[in-house]
């Protein structure tokens, strides 16, 4: 769009449509650079803030990952040893594995559930479900610290989960879930599902509302039911939205911090440790800055890898 704009500008600038002469071309070139200077001026502060407070520290973190440093004394070169530790140290390895497992809770469960809900509420007839959508979206907006406190109560010994289990006669499995080596991690993960479900649903409803109704009617006249409509109309049309939802939720899964910090602190033991929390602990309570940086670099690379894979998967099939 902006190329078109620039082209029309130059026509306007040269005025009457005379043949393109040498001075005309030079003038056009200088005008192009004048426009560029305006753009750079507009970008100076925004890009400056971004460079100083995002890109620069990120690069510095990469540099720090090749050193051993306690944050105060002198740095000593560490080669790749910090990176070796990420994969050889059991605690660090567990955290990285958990980052991938969190994608089950932050991406797979919410996307599948949201697709199911979308299949139910979209199709040939289109009620708006505005209220439901607004409520389901709410957890996305709340402070994660508050969400973590709420779910601490839910999972507590006298919390709602145990209360509900007793109601249906399953009182003997009731337990303080966040204190369990087996259940603490899935419990935290499901809070991730709770947070991202509404976002996925909003993506899919927005996409589904753009599908022409005729496509559903065509399947219906062929005698196809809701399932066929979903399989052959809704799902293929939502491919782009699914890739975006997966990308956004994968990023939030792998960089999860707040809810884990408040709900379990990574415990019991390292049962619910995640890279984000471990990076914080290594850098700011254990003062092993180099090791924290190496884990941060590995995490960044894993996120970029996952995003790239998702993009390729989305492109290949469409």
């Amino acid at each position, binding site marked *: 769009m902006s190329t078109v704009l620039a082209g029309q500008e130059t026509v306007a600038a040269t005025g009457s449509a005379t043949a393109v002469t040498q001075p005309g071309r030079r003038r056009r070139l200088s005008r192009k650079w004048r426009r560029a200077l305006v753009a750079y001026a507009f970008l100076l502060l925004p890009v400056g803030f971004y460079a100083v407070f995002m890109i620069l520290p990120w690069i510095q973190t990469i540099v720090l990952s090749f050193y051993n440093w306690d944050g105060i004394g002198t740095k000593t070169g560490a080669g790749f040893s910090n990176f070796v530790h990420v994969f050889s140290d059991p605690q660090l390895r567990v955290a990285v594995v958990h980052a991938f497992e969190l994608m089950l809770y932050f991406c797979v469960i919410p996307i599948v559930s949201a697709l199911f809900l979308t299949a139910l509420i979209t199709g040939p007839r289109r009620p708006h479900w505005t209220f439901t959508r607004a409520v389901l979206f709410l957890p996305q907006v709340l402070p994660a610290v508050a969400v973590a406190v709420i779910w601490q109560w839910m999972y507590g010994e006298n919390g709602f989960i145990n209360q509900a289990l007793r109601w249906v006669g399953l009182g003997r499995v009731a337990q303080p879930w966040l204190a369990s080596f087996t259940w603490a991690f899935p419990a935290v993960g499901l809070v991730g599902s709770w947070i991202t479900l509404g976002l996925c649903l909003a993506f899919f409803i927005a996409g589904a509302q753009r599908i022409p109704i005729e496509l559903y009617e065509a399947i219906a006249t062929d005698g196809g039911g809701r399932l066929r409509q979903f399989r052959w109309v809704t799902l293929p049309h939502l491919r782009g939205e699914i890739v975006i939802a997966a990308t956004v939720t994968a990023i939030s899964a792998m960089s999860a911090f707040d809810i884990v910090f408040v709900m379990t602190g990574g415990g019991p033991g390292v049962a619910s440790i995640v890279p984000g929390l471990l990076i914080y602990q290594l850098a700011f309570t254990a003062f092993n800055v180099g090791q924290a940086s190496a884990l*941060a670099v590995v995490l960044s690379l894993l996120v970029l890898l996952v995003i790239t894979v998702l993009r390729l998967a989305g492109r290949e099939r469409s």
Partner: protein
Amino acid sequence: MTTRLEWLGTRAVMLFALLSIVIPLLVIATTALEPPGSLNTGLSWPAHPHWGNFVSAWSVAGFSTLMRSSVIVCIGVVPVGVVLATCAGYAFGTIDFPGKRVIFAGLMIGLAVPYEAIVIALYYNLKSVGLTNTYLSVILPLIGAFMPFGAFWMRNHFAHTPVALIEAAQMDGASDLTILTKVLLPNSRAALSTLAVLYFTWTWNQFLLVLIMIQDPARETAPLGLALFVGQYTTNLPLLSAGTLIVIAPVMIVYMFFQRQFIAGLAHGAIKG
């Protein structure tokens, strides 16, 4: 018959989904009204609701100070962040210049990098210039951190405004600043308010950065105060619940008024690009 069953089934599933969101919120609300010292965090209406818990939580956790800090940080981030995002969006959305693709791609990387990978060096940088433990140590990094989304959002908005509008102004000899402020911005109310509301929420909710930068209790923001409050008063659950609701209240109110903008910004915004 099947359609009726279908209709009922749909309602039932949607009701279940609604309850899964609403019940946790009801739990925190009813727990906040339990008598102080109660250990009940299930779902039941307390016999004698203790509304006074909110007052005690406010004073015990020092919410006057926490709220003030949160408001100061929001005032520091939102206006500057939105103005700078608008500038970036104008450049990316309406001007063609060398390096545009590269600079824009570089900005978009910021949407993917885990913030944990940035705060380590960021902390030592700000410490070396004596900025840690100040509001600026939260405000400045957040303006930078939100820039990728802001620039992306405003670029999409400006790229969709009619070219003729800008051309007409240029023929009249209007400068870029005039075009932006007099021609484009009056038509950008919705885009700007959505961005401002999102920036406000993200700033209000920010936890990791504040946890690392701020040690002085007088400068803690509401979520950090809540997290530390939870750590200290583990036995007084009603008080903690009341505190949690106090921290939630501002974003909840904003969400009630701007619900459409939130969903448009986060869901539709990403799809457009």
